[in-house]
């Protein structure tokens, strides 16, 4: 070791290794918390529900490096590798893969796997994954039915609707009808109606009344 080299950014090291040996991402991706660091990202949320964490951002950089390394020439390989990162990921890694979907080259790998990964995340009950599935433009890959069920699931899983990307643009009459049903059920049981449910009702109000 020479003494005149400045200490390297640990993330740069990981990125370089992925560019050199794309397959290594399988064991480097899980190591990000230990190697690079942990903590809340710009949203301030350490659980990564309201926005990406430090690890999510570093892992997205790794996925981007993987996409660069494999090039546009091998979208199949890229889809397979990103799919495996999700398949064998723990909840934090899965969350990071979901948050990295918009960083994948459009039309290729991303569109091939996004719908499947988002559906998997929305089937489970982990609020971190539900939030990440709905939290980026990649949620466009969900059909309207699946997206509405995902948004409604937020009310059951205590995922704040602030976590949902493009909520106001996509909320429609049908979602309003579902939210009204949820509110009615809560009231019939003598329970309070959460603010987020009221927010959904007001977002879709004009349409439901039309």
């Amino acid at each position: 070791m020479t003494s005149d080299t400045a200490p390297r950014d640990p993330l740069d090291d990981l990125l370089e290794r992925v560019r050199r040996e794309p397959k290594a991402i399988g064991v480097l991706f899980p190591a990000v918390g230990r190697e690079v660091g942990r903590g809340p990202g710009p949203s301030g949320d350490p659980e990564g529900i309201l926005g990406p964490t430090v690890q999510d951002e570093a892992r997205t950089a790794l996925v981007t490096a993987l996409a660069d390394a494999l090039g546009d020439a091998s979208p199949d390989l890229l889809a397979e590798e990103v799919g495996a990162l999700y398949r064998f990921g723990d909840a934090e890694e899965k969350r990071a893969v979901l948050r990295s979907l918009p960083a994948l080259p459009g039309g290729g790998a991303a569109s091939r796997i996004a719908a499947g990964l988002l559906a998997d995340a929305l089937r489970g009950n982990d609020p971190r994954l539900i939030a990440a599935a709905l939290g980026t433009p990649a949620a466009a890959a969900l059909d309207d039915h699946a997206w509405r069920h995902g948004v409604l699931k937020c009310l059951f899983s205590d995922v704040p609707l602030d976590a949902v990307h493009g909520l106001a643009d996509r909320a429609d009459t049908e979602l309003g009808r579902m939210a009204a049903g949820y509110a009615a059920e809560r009231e019939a049981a003598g329970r309070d109606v959460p603010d987020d449910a009221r927010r959904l009702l007001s977002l879709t109000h004009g349409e439901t009344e039309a």
Partner: protein
Amino acid sequence: MRIFDPHVHMTSRTTDDYRRMYDAGVRALVEPAFWLGQPRTNPGSFHDYFDGLIGWERFRASRFGIRHHCAIALNPKEANDPRCAEVLRTLPRYLAKDGVVAVGEVGFDAMTAEEEKAFAHQLSLAAEHGLPVLVHTPHRDKAAGTRRTLELVAASGIPPERVLVDHLNETTVDMVDGSGCTLGFSIYPDTKMEPERMVRILQRRGLDRVVVNSAADWGHSDPLATARTGEAMLRSGFTRDDVDRVLWRNPVEFFARSGRLLLEELAPYSGGAFAGNSILRAQHAEPDA
């Protein structure tokens, strides 16, 4: 009393157990991968189980204020099924994860050639990934199985202080003690140790390198067996600091060698809020059968 249970199969336990464990002082645990009672028939069945250990079970424990870690391995019993042994190829992905603090449970069940092959291979994986090893010693022919275990550990070149040899009793304690490995005792009704016998072993050989676990699983077992042992120690004149050493500091010291312990204080979920929005709320979780 703060308790680190270094061997407990929470996948088989209820939320009542988590609540009682927290109340008794359990703040962290290790769930080693093992047999589910019903034999698996393919590697995918292991993958889903491992996913549960690093995913849903860790999340579930966190709701009750308990840090969940796990050990990952192909267990000795199922190492004998060629349909399952293929899972060895996927282990490196799981051994790279945060919260995976050991390779385990490995070891012997019926002492077959297949078990020995899987055991030796996983010892080399542990060396490669810098992970400690959690070794199960067999119910049948325990002394012979333990002796062969120590030979394989010595041959692997893994330093003995990184190996926990578990399910010991009066007949195997001295043999393992001499090896320098960490000594694990499962306080498990009917088939393994009891709190009073555990106390006698501690009185005889001291507290160094000893960890105590409940090994609670789907059988007749008690997730509070660690706390019962701590109480038995206090009744026999051990100090609170002695109890803390056996039930907390010793297992923490052992698994900290993985560099992967997640021990930040975790409050049990009680409707608290982050940024005005409650998260991880158990009460409102969508019911799933």
